[in-house]
């Protein structure tokens, strides 16, 4: 497993950069040409970097008056056909939720970075946490689909931000990138490939005669083609429940048909969406499931465990939502017990417990701003293994 360093010999000069810096570089490499944000610790470096980078590529950076305006401007830019990003942290993520729901419902592509810090409320702005695992999935009102990616290293933040655009654009959805303060502000040595000339996934644009165009037509793959303002389609976009023609409707049949399509639109694209890493799962009697900085600690814990002849494995969802359920079931097939270290009072462990119903699922919960240590995880694995073998 290779979350920290690239496996191959470096072809380019290595750079020592922070996770937030890597995030900004990944956005530009993915073709992002619009950023709107509002200062908040510990994500502000993303905005600062993009305020310099975007003008160089004929993009636009704007610092808006508040968090809500930032996500609104991002969705507005995307409605204009431009790849757009915003970045925030817990309190700002809460403020953005209504408009994230709008983007999901109206199917406007955009990427939202949420750097997780302590909570609730103002919490601990300079300390890591993993408290938005559930909010990132369920934070806006009503039923809606969303994709959440959870990188665990500086390099992976860069790459997953690029992948976020490659999912958001063709699938017409908001994508959240979720990582904690620890990874956001640590610096790591990375080798970043040259993304110039690499084809990125594109939005499916409307073609054909405007009179026949339906902005929310079901289509073959469940993803309607989007129209670009100025291209002659002149359609209506709304947060109200709408029919295929984009106009508001209260017809139960039309709402069920269109909202039903929206809620299931990821199903046939799971090959594209799902991403995870496994290590040592083939013979693992204790499976660790973790994301972000907790997964980094778990990596080291695995080495400790194996050195003590404890058969531990790691399952690390990189796409957190929709959760890669089948992959987790497979990874856990040999395990007698599952351990979920997470920096909150119990979120990821709920989903893991739901998926692995019947299996013993335990958690290490931490919400004091101190990352969970490899030694703690190894100790719990050892205890669990002993208990299960009794």
């Amino acid at each position, binding site marked *: 497993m290779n979350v920290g360093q690239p496996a191959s010999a470096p072809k380019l000069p290595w750079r020592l950069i922070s996770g937030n810096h890597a995030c900004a570089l990944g956005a530009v490499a993915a073709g992002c040409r619009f950023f709107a944000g509002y200062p908040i610790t510990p994500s502000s470096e993303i905005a600062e*970097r993009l305020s*310099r980078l975007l003008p*160089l590529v004929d993009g636009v950076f704007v610092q808006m008056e508040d968090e809500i305006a930032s996500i609104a401007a991002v969705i507005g830019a995307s409605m204009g056909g431009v790849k757009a990003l915003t970045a925030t942290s817990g309190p700002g993520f809460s403020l953005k939720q209504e408009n994230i729901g709008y983007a999901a419902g109206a199917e406007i592509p955009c990427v939202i970075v949420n750097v997780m810090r302590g909570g609730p409320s103002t919490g601990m702005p300079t300390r890591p946490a993993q408290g938005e695992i559930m909010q990132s999935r369920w934070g806006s009102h009503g039923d809606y689909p969303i994709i959440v990616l959870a990188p665990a290293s500086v390099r992976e933040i860069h790459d997953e931000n690029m992948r976020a655009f490659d999912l958001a654009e063709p699938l017409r959805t908001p994508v959240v990138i979720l990582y904690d303060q620890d990874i956001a502000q640590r610096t790591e040595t990375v080798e970043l490939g040259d993304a110039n000339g690499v084809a990125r996934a594109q939005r499916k644009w409307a073609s054909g005669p405007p009179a026949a165009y339906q902005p929310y037509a079901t289509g073959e793959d469940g993803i309607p083609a989007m129209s670009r303002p100025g291209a002659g389609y002149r359609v209506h*976009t709304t*947060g109200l429940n709408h029919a295929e023609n984009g106009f508001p409707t209260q017809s139960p049949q039309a709402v069920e048909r269109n909202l039903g399509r929206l809620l299931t639109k990821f199903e046939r694209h799971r090959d594209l969406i799902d991403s995870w890493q496994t290590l040592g799962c083939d013979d693992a009697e204790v499976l660790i499931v973790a994301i972000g900085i907790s997964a980094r600690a778990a990596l080291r814990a695995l080495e400790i465990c194996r050195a003590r002849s404890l058969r531990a494995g790691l399952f690390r969802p990189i796409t957190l939502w929709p959760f890669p359920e089948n992959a987790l079931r497979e990874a856990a097939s040999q395990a007698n017990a599952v351990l979920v270290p997470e920096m909150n009072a119990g979120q990821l462990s709920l989903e893991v417990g739901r998926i692995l119903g019947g299996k013993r699922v335990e958690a290490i919960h931490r919400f004091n701003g101190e990352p969970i240590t490899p030694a703690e995880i190894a100790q719990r694995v050892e205890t669990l293994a002993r208990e299960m073998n009794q």
Partner: protein
Amino acid sequence: MIVDSASAFDVRTYLRQEMMPHFLCPGCGHGIALRALLWAVYELGLDKDKLAVVSGIGCAGRLSAYIDANTFHVTHGRPLAYATGLALARPDLHVVVITGDGDCLAIGGNHLIHACRRNLKLTCLMLNNEVYGMTGGQVSPTTSETRLTTTTPLGNSEPNFDACTLAAAAGASFVGREVTHHVPKLKQLIRAGLEHPGFAFIEVLSDCTEIFGRKNELGSSAEMVLRQKSELRPSAYRDTVDSPFRSSDLPTGILTKTERPEYGAAYRTAAAAQRARLAASTDQNKGRT
């Protein structure tokens, strides 16, 4: 001079006929404001494909759906913020915002003052009917003092905003106000706003006959609109009054018009200059951020 193109202008060519009949109440002034907007669009010869209309939530917010253009009905209070992103990303579009007094001054008040300050080219029409009509008639930031609403059963005791004074104080480079009674004048004002190379704020004094008028026994729509003409309704914008329609010197027409740099153009100019500087630089690390 008011150009009389009324006979040549057919509003239906700018409306989505499939959306008719519209859902506005009988007597509502919003339809008049919509007509005036489309009339101005017609006179200026704006390309419908390049026209983007962003609206918020409420009765005014629903108007965008009727316009044959690129229309975006967004979240409550946020149309100016959505429009800011759209206009910055697509300077080739002509972006118009339609909002109401609650949408613009209450939940969206922060976006209004910053849009005024920023001076991005946008035309913002705020239709002021003094009430939250869509939700059944609650008090709004522009409801005249003493007025009855469903949430001021004892009479409104909060002072109300003068939206134009607010916009001007926040730095709007174009501010205007008109009443729905004077349709050609309203059209002229909107036309001037559409032509303004910066942020244009236009308050349209509309009327809510069905809910606000009925609650306050203000008579028919015609009576309400005639009061707008003869007495320029909200004398209560600044002082407590027992009759909201007593004579007032509330000004109409273009109230503020100044020239200052348009935000989008200024940004693009600065960005181009930075790119030129880096292109001319011999520094091996140029542009590496």
